[in-house]
């Protein structure tokens, strides 16, 4: 499988790995295709993602996508983070081989689910 340098970099040196002890939004999502999972931890303050961590059990593309996604949403408002799609993540990685596109969907799903979990915890309706 030919990966771009960006993918290999984020796979080898993933950013924002681990658990956020003081997270106020967490989501765990799994891929129907392959059974792999990602857990995302967000620390949200004043409608902004001030910190983020992730854990992924998945392939190189899934790990790189999670890592890239955490970079992309850090410091963003919830609206901006919600708008991030897996296509944006793939683009930021310089592309993924066709059969690996589904791996990037994990990250998108985790972000949206974490945001909705946060909204629910605030007594708001999920988006």
């Amino acid at each position, binding site marked *: 499988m030919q990966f771009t340098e960006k993918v290999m970099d984020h796979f080898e040196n993933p950013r924002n790995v681990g658990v956020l002890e003081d997270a106020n939004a967490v989501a765990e999502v799994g891929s129907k295709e392959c059974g792999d999972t990602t857990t995302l931890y967000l620390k949200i303050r004043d409608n902004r993602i001030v910190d983020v961590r992730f854990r*992924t059990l998945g*392939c*190189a593309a899934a790990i790189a996508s999670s890592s890239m996604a955490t970079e992309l949403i850090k410091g963003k408002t919830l609206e901006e983070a919600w708008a991030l799609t897996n296509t944006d993540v793939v683009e930021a990685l310089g592309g993924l081989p066709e059969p690996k596109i589904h791996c990037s969907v994990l990250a998108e799903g985790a972000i949206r689910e974490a945001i909705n979990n946060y909204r629910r915890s605030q007594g708001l309706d999920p988006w």
Partner: protein
Amino acid sequence: MPEDRIRYFDHSATTPTHPDVVAAMLPYFTEHFGNPSSLYGIAEESREAIARARSQVAAAIGATPEEIFFTAGGTESDNWAIKGIAHAHRDRGDHIITTAIEHHAVLHTCAFLEEQGFSVTYLPVDREGRVDPAAVRDAITDHTILVTVMTANNEVGTVQPIREIGAIAREHGIPFHTDAVQAIGNLELDVDEDNIDLLSLSGHKFYGPKGIGALYIKNGTKIANLIHGGGQERGRRAGTENLPGVVGLGAAIERACTDIPAHAARLAGLRDRLLAGIMEGIPDVTLNGHPTERLPGNINLSFGGIDGEALLTLLAMKGICASTGSACSSGSDAPSHVLLAIGTSPQRARASLRLTLGDLTADEDVDYLLALLPGAVEKLRRLSGAGA
């Protein structure tokens, strides 16, 4: 740090053609290029070369030359054996017995025959990947026309009790086919002693060229043709002979089967050292397949808390070629049917690694892998949280 030396642990996928084999083939591209079907002198040389190769293949498995038919490889041999027997024996019945862990060349051929109205029994295997000969006996009905069980499994390396299975088929007068693609050169086979009526083999698994294989068909076996056309291979398999390929297959099988015990002992030694090192250095690993009845160069492992493909990618970055039981990388995300059949959970099946050793594997490659693998697994476990 870029690693320039390739550490090849994927001999079950394919092997490099041995230089001696290439040397044997070369004149048949240029000097001795005559079409074996022609009438002049250079054609005679081609015919002789084919006859020699046929004898070499026959000798390696205890057959006679007339029982060897050249094909384009293991997949064609499997297709021919199964469809050929099915179609030639349809008047006697429509039932085929095979196992759940066969190669796709066998499984997909059987599925195709099911669409045509044949019925197929897929025998289960035990946790170590073995087929119970008694289950073969129990599955036989008055309509059974073929038993096909692989000699050794390509993923988990388990070796089947084919001699006993063949004996049971023989008692019932049912042809017995075995896909011996992974076994040639690693296990000693004798078609008579092992009660085999049809046997598939493939050149590139034992340091021969790709695109050439053979099917052994025991004298007197009724079988339909798969490839129709000219009268090549005594009217059984049409198409101008792949002359250099045939010569290469002959040279390769003679070389690979000359001293199987010594070859197997070397591989088993490396394998056992590698396996012991992994078990010692990494927690939460299981060996898939049979602990002893396995190919001398095969290790198949499952790790807790990682994805096998991610591990492969990490290893590939360090110059290590291996494979996973998961079909993820080929675009289909279903875990290996073999690992599922031996009772591995889907999650664990996805976290598998197959290391197959062979001529390219040196002692230092084992050291290198042993130095690298624990760290790679730990890195992925930290990422998934399983190592925390």
